[in-house]
């Protein structure tokens, strides 16, 4: 790395050659406000709040667009800078409605915080504000399927425009009526139609772009906890953060209020897709299975306790395993974590040739522009590679097509006595199993056991239903399409009597007289590490999982390039001691969920 050294406010700073003064200042923890600069987007230099004084340069410079050079002497506190900066802030607020009390960004808004810190204490402008589409929240207008736009709040930083142009690859947003009437617009006012649209809420530094999903739902100070985890809605494995709203046990509504992306340069950068961002409602949805269900002698399903359910499973499967080779079939969703697949494999080995397993998942082509920089894989499941690494037959490559036809033939031929489905993903994510539900109803196979998280036609047809956990309710390993083994952390408790899926499988094994000897998830990971030495799984027993931390703490320690901003914005909250994160093993320093090498 070629380095240059400069001084910012008297502090010597050394940065990589080619970095800008603003980037150097952020790295050094020097307070320079910025709006149009975003580390994931091209530099624009349009908002002017990042101005600094650089010795030997005749005028103040925008630090975001000035590249560091050797020996530069930069001041961010010179009275000349402070004055000019305050003037810029005054101008930014000329037309701003200052409706923070009803604005979704309130509490985590750089415009609030920076204006407060760097702006003048009052405005000299006494003429009426320019207003688009009405006052207050009436100005929130339709901005496509996922977003709302409030032009009155917009500061025209053009981050949203650049995001669409550079990352999405389809420039759907532009500035219309440039000049005094400048406004962010889409052609025909048709709104933003993109699978990456949620990122626009993240890039917008004010409350101009908000998501319908999170609108009016919570405030940053109502979100006491954030958990760092990994998205499991497709094989990309984006790093994400899950925000939990603080509310008493008895209060209605969900705790899970939003999911935001977390910087992972080699996986998802600063972004995530809308499928992962908005597709979490099922986790706390109405269709969650909260108690085991057993079909009684009268043929009707009824809720049961774990003891009865497991005993019934043991009985039914015990009979089926005597049915000869391939009489007991497992269908595993690729939404299952590696631990679960590993335990299941141990069980199958113990059962011998009576048992066989098929992994299944869904695929869908995503409609994305040709120039898109963030592609969403076709595989709608997180752990196809993990299944392959454990020796399950899933075909070659990342985009393989799962195949149940052999199983279906065997079921039709009547050689299959029992089918056990392991499906910890949302209903339908395992693929189309309606034929299996119909086959069970027709009596072949005679036994259908479903371990799932959501009720579906399949669970309706089952003899026993065992409620498992969604990915946000358990620690689990998933191997993404790059072959990275990543840990997704638990953010919530499973609902009702639902349990961790690996432990259900251990108990099912026990009911069949097979002792696997795992008492906790760590034991399973240890066994995986021993079974697959030398590769990416060699040290999975060392993986630490994040626990929900206080939102303010999260904001400080997250995304390093924005970190100073968050630090600063939450400066009035009580300090969080140290930088430790609680884990299963106790406390470790710094970040958890380390990136693992591709291998």
């Amino acid at each position: 790395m070629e380095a240059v050294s400069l001084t910012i406010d008297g502090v010597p700073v050394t940065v990589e050659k080619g970095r800008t003064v603003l980037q150097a200042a952020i790295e050094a923890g020097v307070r320079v406000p910025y709006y149009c600069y975003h580390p994931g987007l091209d530099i624009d230099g349009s908002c002017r709040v990042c101005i600094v004084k650089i010795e030997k340069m005749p005028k103040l410079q925008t630090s975001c667009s000035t590249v560091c050079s050797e020996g530069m002497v930069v001041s961010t506190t010179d009275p000349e800078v402070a004055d000019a900066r305050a003037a810029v802030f005054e101008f930014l607020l000329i037309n701003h409605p200052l409706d923070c009390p009803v604005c979704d960004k309130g509490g985590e808004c750089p415009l609030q915080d920076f204006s407060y810190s760097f702006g003048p204490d009052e405005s000299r402008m006494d003429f009426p504000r320019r207003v688009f589409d009405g006052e207050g929240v009436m100005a929130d207008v339709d901005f496509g399927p996922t977003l709302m736009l409030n032009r009155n709040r917009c500061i025209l930083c053009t981050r949203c425009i650049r995001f669409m142009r550079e990352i999405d690859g389809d420039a759907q947003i532009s500035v219309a009526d440039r000049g005094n009437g400048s406004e962010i617009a889409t052609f025909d006012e048709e709104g933003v139609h993109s699978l990456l649209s949620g990122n626009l809420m993240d890039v917008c530094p004010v409350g101009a772009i908000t998501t319908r999903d999170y609108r009016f739902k919570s405030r940053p100070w109502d979100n006491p906890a954030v958990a760092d985890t990994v998205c499991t809605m497709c094989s990309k494995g984006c790093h994400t953060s899950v925000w939990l709203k603080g509310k008493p046990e008895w209060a209605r509504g969900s705790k899970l209020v939003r999911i935001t992306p977390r910087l992972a340069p080699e996986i998802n950068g600063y972004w995530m897709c809308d499928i992962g961002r908005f597709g979490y409602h099922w986790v706390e949805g109405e269709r969650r299975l909260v108690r085991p269900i057993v079909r009684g002698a009268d043929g009707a399903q009824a809720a049961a306790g774990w003891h009865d359910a497991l005993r019934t499973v043991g009985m039914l499967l015990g009979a089926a395993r005597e049915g000869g080779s391939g009489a007991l079939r497992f269908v595993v969703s690729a939404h299952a974590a590696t631990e679960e697949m590993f335990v299941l494999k141990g069980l199958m080995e113990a059962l011998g040739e009576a048992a066989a397993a098929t992994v299944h998942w869904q695929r869908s082509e995503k409609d994305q522009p040709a120039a898109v920089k963030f592609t969403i894989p076709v595989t709608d499941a997180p752990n196809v590679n993990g299944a392959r690494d454990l020796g399950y037959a899933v075909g070659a490559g990342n985009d393989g097509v799962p195949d149940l036809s052999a199983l279906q033939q065997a079921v039709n031929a009547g050689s299959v006595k029992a089918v056990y489905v392991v499906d910890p993903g949302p209903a339908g994510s395992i693929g189309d199993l309606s034929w299996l539900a119909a086959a069970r109803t027709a009596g072949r196979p005679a036994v259908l056991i479903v371990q799932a998280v959501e009720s579906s036609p399949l669970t309706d047809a089952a003899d026993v239903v065992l409620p498992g956990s969604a990915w946000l309710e358990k620690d689990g390993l998933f191997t993404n399409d790059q072959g990275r083994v990543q840990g997704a952390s638990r953010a919530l408790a499973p609902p009702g009597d639902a349990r961790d899926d690996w432990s259900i499988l251990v108990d099912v094994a026990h009911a069949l007289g097979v002792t696997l000897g795992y008492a906790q998830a760590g034991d399973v990971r240890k066994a995986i590490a021993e079974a697959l030495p030398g590769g990416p799984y060699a040290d999975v027993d060392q993986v630490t999982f994040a626990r929900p931390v206080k939102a303010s703490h999260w904001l400080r320690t997250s995304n390093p390039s924005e970190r100073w901003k968050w630090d600063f914005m939450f400066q009035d909250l009580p300090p969080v001691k140290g930088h430790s994160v609680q884990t299963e093993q106790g406390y470790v320093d710094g970040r958890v969920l380390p990136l693992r090498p591709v291998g």
Partner: protein
Amino acid sequence: MSFHPQMDYAPARFHRSARRLADQGEPFAFTPERQAAFDRSVARYPADRRRSAILAALYLVQEQQGYVSRQAMRFVATQVACTPAEVEDVVTYYVMYYRRPVGTYVLAVCRTLSCALNGAERVTEALAEALGVEPGGTDATGTFTLTEFECLGACDRAPVVMVNNEHWQERLTPDRVPRFLEDLRARGLAALGGCLHAGAEPGDRAS
């Protein structure tokens, strides 16, 4: 699942923007001659910079249909390889692209300093009254569109009115407005004074 690639979306449920859009217009394509003219101008730029020809394309559109409709913007986007939003960005920036049909004569009254000091506002008022329109509007017969403009570079002969972006009338005072309109109606652009020296009267050149 509540959200998946098939986004459930009923725009009618939400508050719509009140932004005034360009007219929708008829489906648009260049006539063969204009397409040839466009191809000539686009050939002047590197192949990956087709968008450089956007202004030329929009002028050809305006020449063909008198204004730039939304349909035409979509067409131009395909011609210059960018998105309709980017075309709209350009169209709405330049005041000389019209977004809805205009009259035969577009009267642009300068409102910048010299003209303003010399009573341009009164001229606008007189024109508005005579035509029965507000600035920005087109009269009932579709003959005149009245707009206001910034400095036309003829400050020494203020107040100035530009007609159809290429023709001029200088020293137009409110009392001369009726005769100015009459002459335009009767004799078309030939009635205009053009760039004259001090003292010229409307209609002088024609005689």
